[in-house]
């Protein structure tokens, strides 16, 4: 049953587009509340032009969330002593600050120098400044731990 005001969408494929393309075809069926002054009180079904949307997003590689073993090679015994480790922070997630604090202390105890960098807005003048700072940040570190961790 279609609720009032709802537009029914079907997913499926469209000729000429492969299975990787996320395609949504719109079924132009809309149920509307009775208009003011319509004494019949009956909901009406109206039609709309049909269209489809191609999603530009690629199909993600399916990996199990807990399958951490696929994410990196086995440790090779990297010595962190003297390494400059950048940690990217943001202004949104205090939990990530706490995580980063704990990890920074441990990495420091292993001889690494922690280089924190906190991002700001990505638009306007501040966004331009963030772009410059990001380039400087990457150039300034040996490796980076890039968090969002929301």
């Amino acid at each position: 049953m279609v609720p009032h005001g709802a537009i029914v969408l079907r997913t499926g494929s469209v000729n000429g587009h492969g299975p990787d393309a996320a395609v949504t075809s719109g079924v132009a069926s809309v149920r509307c509340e009775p208009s003011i002054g319509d004494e019949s009180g009956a909901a009406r079904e109206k039609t709309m032009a049909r269209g489809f949307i191609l999603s530009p997003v690629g199909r993600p590689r399916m990996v199990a969330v807990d399958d951490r073993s696929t994410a990196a090679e086995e440790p090779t015994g990297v010595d962190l002593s003297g390494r400059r480790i950048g940690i990217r922070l943001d202004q949104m997630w205090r939990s990530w600050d706490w995580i980063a604090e704990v990890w920074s202390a441990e990495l420091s105890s292993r001889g690494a120098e922690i280089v924190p960098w906190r991002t700001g807005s990505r638009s306007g003048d501040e966004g331009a400044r963030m772009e410059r700072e990001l380039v400087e940040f990457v150039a300034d570190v040996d490796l980076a731990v890039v968090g969002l961790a929301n």
Partner: protein
Amino acid sequence: MVAGLKAAVAVCTEQFRALGETLAMSAGRQPLPMVTLPYPLDTRPEAEVRQIAIEYLPELLRMLGVKA
């Protein structure tokens, strides 16, 4: 590691793992070493979050190539 590029480890929560994979793939950076933390994280008490940080520290070190 390719000369001129820096090693990086991304950190996200379970909820955003697939998005992170997709973004990394779109940028040609797959596989991207990624530490995946429990979700939600930001609603947890500070002490619990810090404990999670301790629990996942070995994972971070492994991603960095450090033998714990």
